[in-house]
């Protein structure tokens, strides 16, 4: 079974009937930047083909070529034995290829049925008006085919994220898709909802639909996919059956070097208690959270997206005041009702969305860095000239390269933008740093610099809370790991006892009896 796989993956011996679509030596450049170069990729009917790689590896670019959003600069796209060139997603859809983007492009104010028919020929009544009954009937049929019970008349904004996802899938399938591309479909789903999605994927593949599955969750990839293709820096690294790979090998292929070279973490000796949270609760977001954080310690906060980690950190920072519970800074009770109050107690939060929450994009690097210290350095309400030296000092500490201090932040690379955000927080000289996904979407070089900086800061005695969805990051950097699930702390692990498995189990609720009926779950978790 594995032998023919290998030859077919090579492409030469493939009979076109055996693929839904095939990309051959595709290259795409944006200006001078090469996004993908000489990449080949094929999808067979009825398979789940995982596409993995770090942020910026070229996964989304590649799939947008298949979806007709981008035209390749070089190379060809074959669909059903013919070379095609799509000029829009509409062409791709006509050829049976549907993409479900990461950011769902639904219309929140419209009903489920209306969303399914957006941009498509809608049933008409005899008088030329919309035939709503026919639309709802058709929508109901589509949803039934997916095995879900959703009211076709309900407004999309009232649905859970998981159900919105299902609407997006149903919409993609309205056009008799033979290939479905899913870009990070589970990033905001709970474990139970992931199960439902996987059920739908299995039904699709049973009907000979091919599925491209883009994800960074290794456990899901190994569970659902038949084959895996790894991209790195726009190049094709490897395509192999999932059974021939293991998670460590996959990570090595993605990162291009062993993980321990990426991270820097010295021996730590946590000192006095810097931050303590007791029974913190905010309705609908998190409940009864206790945590302690010491000077010189990096505390990892793991969990799935939507587990309430960001909300908890923002609550400590005064953005979302808690309903009940206590926050103690240096052993003293602190009433923190605004970011300013938090800063005065030496707390600083580095947000996960750097463009919308961390930066004033039209501002220069300098003005962004000094944003939070203007009130400190200004004299009689005016900004002194020494502002420049202050900004320079922190820019140097973060080694922001290839940019002038007067460049607007909006034009910087993701890595440099993140460095500016971190520099801004350091300028305030906080004792307690809350870092929310500090390395998301930045290149490997910038990542390792941020890790080294975190290590240095901990050595200086700063207390660091590291929120991260990348397990390797938490496992490698944190002295201690707290796991959150559905708004509650669901596990705590010391550096030695923490493993990928037990953290993931705590994050997804694998031990929760409600999920125990699922045999896959049980097999991987218990003993």
């Amino acid at each position, binding site marked *: 079974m594995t032998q023919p796989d290998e030859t077919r993956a090579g492409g030469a011996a493939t009979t076109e009937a055996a693929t839904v679509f095939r990309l051959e030596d595709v290259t795409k450049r944006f200006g001078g930047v090469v996004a993908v170069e000489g990449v080949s990729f094929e999808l067979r009917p009825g398979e789940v083909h995982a596409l993995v790689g770090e942020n910026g590896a070229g996964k989304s670019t590649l799939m947008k070529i298949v979806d007709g959003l981008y035209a390749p600069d070089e190379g060809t796209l074959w669909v059903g034995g013919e070379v095609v060139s799509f000029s829009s997603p509409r062409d791709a859809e006509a050829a049976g290829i549907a993409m479900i983007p990461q950011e769902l492009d639904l219309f929140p104010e419209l009903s489920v049925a209306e969303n399914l028919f957006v941009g498509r020929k809608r049933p008409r009544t005899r008088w030329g008006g919309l035939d709503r009954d026919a639309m709802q009937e058709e929508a109901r049929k589509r949803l039934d085919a997916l095995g879900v019970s959703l009211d076709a008349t309900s407004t999309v904004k009232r649905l859970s994220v998981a159900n919105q996802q299902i609407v997006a899938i149903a919409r993609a399938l309205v056009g008799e898709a033979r290939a479905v591309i899913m870009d990070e479909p589970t990033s905001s789903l709970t474990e139970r909802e992931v199960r439902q999605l996987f059920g739908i994927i299995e039904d699709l593949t049973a009907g000979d639909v091919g599925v491209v599955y883009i994800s960074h969750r290794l456990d899901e990839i190994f569970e659902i996919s038949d084959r895996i293709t790894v991209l790195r820096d726009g190049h094709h690294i490897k395509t192999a059956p999932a059974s021939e790979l293991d998670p460590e090998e996959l990570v090595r292929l993605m990162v291009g070097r062993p993980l321990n070279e990426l991270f820097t973490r010295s021996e730590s000796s946590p000192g006095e208690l810097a931050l303590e949270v007791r029974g913190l609760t905010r309705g609908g977001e998190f409940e009864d959270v206790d945590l302690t954080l010491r000077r010189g310690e990096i505390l990892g906060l793991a969990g799935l997206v939507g587990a309430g980690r960001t909300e908890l950190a923002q609550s400590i920072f005064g953005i979302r005041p808690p309903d009940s519970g206590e926050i103690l800074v240096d052993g003293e009770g602190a009433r923190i009702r605004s970011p300013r109050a938090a800063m005065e107690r030496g707390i600083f939060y580095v947000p996960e969305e750097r463009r919308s929450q961390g930066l004033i994009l*039209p*501002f220069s690097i300098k003005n962004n860095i000094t*944003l939070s210290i203007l009130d400190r350095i*200004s004299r009689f*309400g005016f900004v002194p000239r020494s502002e420049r030296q202050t900004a320079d000092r922190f820019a140097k500490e973060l080694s922001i390269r290839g940019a002038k*201090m007067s460049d607007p932040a909006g034009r910087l690379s993701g890595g440099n933008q993140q460095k500016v955000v971190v520099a801004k927080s350091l300028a305030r000289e906080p004792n307690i740093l809350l870092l929310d996904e500090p390395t998301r979407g930045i290149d490997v070089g910038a990542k390792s610099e941020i890790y080294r900086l975190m290590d240095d800061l901990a050595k200086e005695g700063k207390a660091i809370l590291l929120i991260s969805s990348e397990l390797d990051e938490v496992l490698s950097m944190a002295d201690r790991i707290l796991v959150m699930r559905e708004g509650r702390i669901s596990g705590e692990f010391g550096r030695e006892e923490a493993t990928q498995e037990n953290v993931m189990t705590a994050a997804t609720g694998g031990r929760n009896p409600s999920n125990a009926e699922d045999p896959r779950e049980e097999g991987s978790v218990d003993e």
Partner: protein
Amino acid sequence: MSEARAPAERGGAGGVSLRRLLRRPEAPALVFLVVLVAAFTLANDRFLQVGNLESILASVAVLGVIALAVNQVILCGEIDISTGSMLGLCAVAAGAVATSAGGLLLPLLAGVAMGALAGAVNGFLVTVGRIPSIIVTLGMLYALRGVILLVTGGTWITGIPNETRVLGIGKVFGLGYPVIVLLLLFVVMELVSRHSTWGRNVFAVGGNRRAARFAGLPIDRVRFLAFVLVGVFVGIASVIYMGRAGSVQTNTGAGLELQVVAAVVIGGTSISGGRGSPLAALTGAVLIGVILNGLVLLGVPGIWQDAVLGGLILLAITTDVLRRRLVGDKA
């Protein structure tokens, strides 16, 4: 700045600095102003005379002073369309004090205090009340006009003494007080906008309110102060207005609120906030004055004024949109 400035200085020929100049938000309006002045000068040689230029500036002093303050509100990402009625109310307060007590200082204080009070109400409703500023100031536009009518009973205030009128009609070395006040406040606003903490925070709040909040900036205080500043500047403008007119009618300032917003936007300050400058507000106001004056000198009938002004606003917005597309400036 040393890094950034060095190439511009060494580059010679001004190539780099010219491009930097053209990137500034008020550049299109300034270029347009120069072109217009040249055109009007060619068409009528009386246009460029010192006396005419001074009278243009004097005629837009009230508009310009208010635009300098509303500019800050718009930079914050808010708007204030209550200034027309506010000017009337301030003028009524200043006029009442002028006719009873006389002098310049007391009427000026009365106008400024009245303006600051009205601005504080605007600011309070926007920040603490969390009501969109367009709604708050639209309501205030009508409410304040109503107060004027109730207080004055519909009658004019006349007989403003000359010592009060000096701010509108007085001259020093051939330069009218209105022009001096306008230029002085412009310089003050440039300094405040470039170098003060509040000035910087205004850009931050308008550029990305969320990030400004996350950075611990006092967003509500920044916006509140901007609304109060409008009131203070309207108060000053009301005394200039009263001096020039010599009386206070109940419809004083009617329609001015939108001309102010037009001046700010024509000048190049982004209506969505975060981008612009006091120079933009001044340029916009002067541009409006030049056009109105030029039309008169060219003998264009007065009924054309509004059409030309409207066309100008659309033209200004269009050139800005085009410029952004060309430069690829998404920020």
